[in-house]
């Protein structure tokens, strides 16, 4: 599917709402059955909207006002083990507090849905956007999809439930949306009709296991080294890779049904006819799209790759697009301390085996909500071109520091 133009959906209704509101609508439309909720800025309004939907009778779900995010995820896990569709949302410290049980949801193969409203982590306190919270959960096995518009947030929750609940996937997912930039910003959103969503997303019926008194099983007791522990982990890896294929099919199906296509594992533009590619995630990638439009008008040959799916990583897709390029510029909104930007380093690793492997230069920008504007992204591009011709000596460079980088 390469059609990128969205046409107006025939069904649904239009409203001007925040991405948090859009996410809550998505959970309602997905007919989630259990919502453990704990507030944290800037996620809070998602669980408030859901409380409203439930108390007004617009969503038939159990709402659990848990006392922490660790409990929110544990309760979502509990609900999913009996076969209920579970949904929660969090941000930043809340996601970090969940870390232990995020692993548990994956190990138990429970297709729980969660919205992560990306926010910097403390200390010092910052309530503003960066991706450190979600990126720090990279190796839990959660499917991680970054969105860059309110509509995409809504649509992605619906699509990802279908991906996650596929019999060859059975993994939880997080839809990551930028704090404030999306979560609190109003934009026109088409809210699909319930009937259309029902025909797209059938009720959850666990095909693998569940807590059922009629068929008692034990899940998660000790596994010895010579038994199947490694194979179970291998199976999670396979399932994660399968999710990428499912997303491809399901995004196409969604586009056919609802008339909207946001890309699959990646979203690309101008990638075929460009010398350079600029890669980013979330709203930073939308900003890059605008910057690239200007750069192209100014005669630069550069295209865009938005990484939507961060795990599983779209290494093959990027490798294919990278062939023959003069260079790839990656802008990360998080950092792996002592190494570089996570996107940049994953992308570099994916390209290692490519025959035609362009240089990759990474930048770390926009941490703690620091504004990254079109002019910054254009500056990043020009600096990248220079570095590529002079030789890149690290995974990522810091962009826009107010202090001088040692050795610069």
């Amino acid at each position, binding site marked *: 599917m390469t059609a990128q133009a969205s046409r107006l959906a025939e069904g649904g209704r239009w409203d001007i709402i925040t991405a948090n509101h859009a996410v809550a609508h998505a959970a309602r439309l997905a007919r989630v059955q259990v919502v453990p909720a704990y507030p944290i800025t800037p996620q809070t309004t998602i669980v408030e909207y859901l409380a409203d939907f439930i108390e007004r009778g617009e969503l038939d779900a159990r709402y659990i006002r848990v006392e922490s995010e660790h*409990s929110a995820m544990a*309760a979502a*896990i*509990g609900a999913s083990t009996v076969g209920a569709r579970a949904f929660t949302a969090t941000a930043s410290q809340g996601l970090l507090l969940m870390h232990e049980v995020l692993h548990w949801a994956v190990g138990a193969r429970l297709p729980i849905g969660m919205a992560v409203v990306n926010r910097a982590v403390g200390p010092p306190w910052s309530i503003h956007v960066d991706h450190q919270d979600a990126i720090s959960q990279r190796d839990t096995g959660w499917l991680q999809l970054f969105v860059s518009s309110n509509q995409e947030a809504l649509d992605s929750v619906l699509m990802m439930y279908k991906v996650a609940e596929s019999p060859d996937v059975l993994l939880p997912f997080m839809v990551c949306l930028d704090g404030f930039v999306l979560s609190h910003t109003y934009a026109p959103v088409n809210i699909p009709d319930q009937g259309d969503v029902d025909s797209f997303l059938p009720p959850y019926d666990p095909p693998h296991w569940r807590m059922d*008194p009629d068929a*008692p099983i*034990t899940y998660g*007791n*000790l596994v010895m080294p010579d038994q199947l522990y490694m194979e179970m982990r291998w199976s999670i890896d396979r399932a994660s890779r399968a999710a990428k294929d499912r997303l491809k099919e399901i995004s196409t199906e969604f586009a056919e049904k609802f008339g909207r296509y946001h890309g699959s594992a990646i979203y690309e533009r101008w990638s075929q006819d460009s010398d350079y590619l600029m890669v980013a995630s979330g709203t930073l990638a939308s900003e890059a799209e605008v910057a690239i439009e200007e750069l192209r008008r100014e005669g630069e040959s550069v295209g865009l790759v938005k990484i939507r799916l961060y795990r599983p990583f779209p290494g093959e897709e990027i490798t294919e697009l990278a062939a023959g390029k003069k260079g790839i510029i990656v802008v990360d909104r998080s950092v792996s301390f002592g190494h570089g930007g996570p996107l940049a380093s994953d992308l570099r690793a994916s390209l290692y085996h490519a025959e035609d492997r362009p240089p990759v230069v990474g930048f770390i920008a926009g941490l703690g909500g620091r504004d990254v504007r079109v002019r910054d992204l254009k500056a990043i591009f020009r600096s990248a071109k220079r570095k590529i011709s002079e030789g890149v000596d690290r995974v990522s460079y810091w962009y826009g520091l107010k202090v001088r980088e040692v050795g610069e």
Partner: protein
Amino acid sequence: MPITMKDLRRAGKFVMPGNAACPGCGALVAFKLVSKVLGKDAVYVIPACCTSVIQGPYPKSGFRVPVFNMAFAAAASTAAGMAAGLAALGRGNVRVVAWAGDGGTYDIGIQALSGAAERGDDVLYICYNNEAYMNTGIQRSGATPPKAWTKTTPTGKAEMKKNMPLIVAAHGASYVATASIGYPFDLVNKVAKARDKRGFRYIEILSTCPTGWNYPVNKTIELARLAVDTYVWPLYEVEDGKLRITMRPKRRPLREYLAPQRRFAHLTEEDVRALERAFMDRWEALEKLEAAGRIFV
């Protein structure tokens, strides 16, 4: 109608022989009795504790009930989610049991437990209390009695233990009880009562542990009885806000309970007297609570 031996013998068998429990394991006796009373329509969430091991390793299980093994701090929260999920699916007849040790209850799990109790989640929480972190090899917990040897209190625990059942009762839980495998009929009838109530119910079962307490394995039941008879482990229940002591045995000297347990071997006469005083203080406080009427409101 109270549960009798006849009823128990007719009940289902949910513990499979040949599991991994130590010989003389009090926790397994507790699980066996509880599962008989709850019957088939129950699901169990088990956080890290001895019972994680007792089940035996994959791909077999020593329990013939649905069991979900969960992270240490998350017994009550996971159970809350299960109960909500079952209710959403129209299976509210299924009882959700959180089966946790004292570490998972008194210490790392207390936050989730407090949340579930305050919300009144439809969960039967059972703490089988063996008075230390036994699964990791005997380290002190908030439930370890004073003076007891553990590997992290090699000269004996300096502090008193938490009064966990009363902490839960103070949340306004719909039922709270203490029980001992040494008084099995008191135990099973409390479990039956809890089974038939809704909302958050909490039962704490003293589960004697030959491995951690270091006594001869055949004395598991005898010591569980002696704990009650020496007033170390009072049996009571809290219902409708009122506390009722369910067993008032003729008090026996504390020494009888302590002597077989090597974890108390280092105690002096004076220590024993101090300990007896401490336990009697708690007992007298309980009697005052009992006399006070509806106080857990």
